[in-house]
């Protein structure tokens, strides 16, 4: 049994992909599965910075929002093809990450969280005020992608299952990238910085540059999640940029298990599924998720996936 789990741990991207291929059939409906896919990616991108390098950002909604808005603006105002619009969203989020990261990594610890939160608010107000481009409070409407051709085959983006697999394609690429980063020397340096920043610096690693690089990578992945969300929802709500949205990434990572590869995904799935179930009988869903989150912080800091992994006694750095 144990060797089976070790096999999965060695091929985490493949295992995750296979699982996600059948995922929409486990969920009650496809739109929820797509939502989990997108927020799972968002939490994974966030976790790269938080779980693996120990930097708790409270401004990651900025990157989800930049990705969403730039993709949306590209399609609505400039009639871009959707592939190019995704690229614009990702590059925009990476540039945003470069600027925000440059300012934020000058600070440490709790200061870092506060600064990222405040910088995230700058992005919020910028998009909020640019009403002619972003629709302000009403959000950006009409991000339409319906039918297009891939190698001559017509693809119906309005079919939920088709949409799921197209989005999954991008998510798998991002997952593969994350996995490669984590098993590269860069991944080792990231964990060294998390464990002891001073010692990592003394070993000759450029701590500031690593932090900035990972910040940008994390921003780009969250930007991709945002771009995909714009295509999925066909509108971009202004809430995307709100710091409670940043908090959702934090909650999902903690709930699933920070510093694990698949944990953030599990966290996103549990949280969104819970939201779906709870909202059918009470509208006070925030209280429920708040309590669940507090419970996990107090009693299960490793999260669901992290606890399972340590029960199975799998080596943390292989998963």
């Amino acid at each position, binding site marked *: 049994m144990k060797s089976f789990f070790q096999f999965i741990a060695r091929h985490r991207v493949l295992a995750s992909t296979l699982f996600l291929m059948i995922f929409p059939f486990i969920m009650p409906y496809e739109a929820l599965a797509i939502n989990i896919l997108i927020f799972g990616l968002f939490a994974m991108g966030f976790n790269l910075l938080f779980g693996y390098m120990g930097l708790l950002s409270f401004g990651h909604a900025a990157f989800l929002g930049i990705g969403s808005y730039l993709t949306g603006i590209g399609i609505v105002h400039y009639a871009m093809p959707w592939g190019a619009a995704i690229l614009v969203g990702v590059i925009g989020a990476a540039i945003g990450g470069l600027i925000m990261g440059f*300012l934020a990594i000058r600070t440490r*610890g*709790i200061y870092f*969280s506060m*600064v990222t939160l*405040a910088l995230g608010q700058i992005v919020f107000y910028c998009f909020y*005020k640019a009403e002619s481009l972003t629709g302000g409070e009403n959000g950006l409407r009409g991000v339409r992608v319906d039918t297009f051709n891939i190698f001559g085959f017509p693809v119906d983006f309005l079919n939920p299952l088709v949409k799921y697999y197209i989005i999954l394609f991008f998510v798998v690429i991002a997952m593969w990238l994350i996995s490669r980063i984590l098993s590269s020397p860069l991944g080792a340096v990231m964990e060294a910085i998390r464990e002891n920043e001073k010692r990592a610096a003394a070993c000759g690693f450029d701590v500031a540059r690593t932090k900035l690089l990972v910040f940008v990578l994390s921003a780009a992945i969250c930007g991709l999640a945002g771009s995909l969300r714009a295509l999925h929802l066909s509108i971009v709500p202004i809430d995307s940029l709100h710091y409670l949205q940043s908090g959702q990434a934090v909650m999902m990572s903690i709930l699933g298990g920070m510093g694990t590869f698949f944990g953030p995904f599990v966290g996103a799935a549990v949280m969104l599924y819970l939201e779906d179930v709870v909202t059918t009988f009470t509208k006070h869903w*925030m209280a429920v998720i708040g*309590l669940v989150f*507090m419970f996990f912080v107090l009693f299960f800091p490793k999260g669901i996936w992290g606890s399972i992994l340590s029960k199975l006694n799998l080596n943390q750095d292989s998963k």
Partner: protein
Amino acid sequence: MTGLTFELLCMQLLTGIALGSIYALLALGLCLIFGMLNVVNFAHGAFFMVGAFMGVYFLGVTGNFWFSLILTPLATGVLGLVTERFLVRPLYGRGIDYPLLLTFGLSYVLIEAMRVTFGIEGLPSVTPDGLKGTLDVGIGFFPKYRLFLIAATTVIIFAVWFFIQKTRYGLIIKAGAADQEIVKVLGVDIAKVWLMVFGLGCAIAGLSGILASPTRSVNPEMGIPILAESFVVTVVGGMGSPVGAVVAGLLVGVVYSMASLFFPDLAELSIFVLMAVVLLIRPQGLFGKAGAMG
């Protein structure tokens, strides 16, 4: 620019100081808890919001603003005591992120609790009778309530300063922040001190909530933007510096109100830009120590 007079500038400056005094009070509460317990209270905005609701509620029940000014901080203070004892205390020694995350979760619960109790629309804010209208301040007419706000926060800030600097309890708090081991050895129950400091910080947050309530709309989401703004104040002032909290609070308030006079569209942005500039020049904040950022 037409109509820009010296009087208008002064009035706007006064408005900024009134706004800034609320920021200063909030940041002072944050700073007190952080300096002593090394905890960033992410629910601080939520305590502010609860304070505003309690204030309006008590005002409705008792009909007396002064009563509610006493009852509200007591209520949020007790809420703070319970929070520290049962939620924050188990997390000491588990790193700096966990209490922050827990209080973030708590803010969700508090927002929903107010929605359940008072409805999602919130409550109409009330200005107490004696403080309605305006007063001639020599250069024009200024709302009485804002003058009261400035006076009240000055008194509170001075009282907190007196408590920390001049009393025996303050001495213990300061000593505990500097070296908790020594204080323990001297026979002080440090856990009780932490409990009290957390309660005091939450009481101050609640007090700023009721004080601010007549100047803004009282709804469950009102604590959300103010939390980000009080973080800006803390970053500008320097983490853990009470003087920094007060000075930066006033500065942020004045910058906001001046920006809304000259560039109304960019008013919200202005304080964040201020923060970015301060960060570039002094990452540790105006009054922070270079080593105190960890």
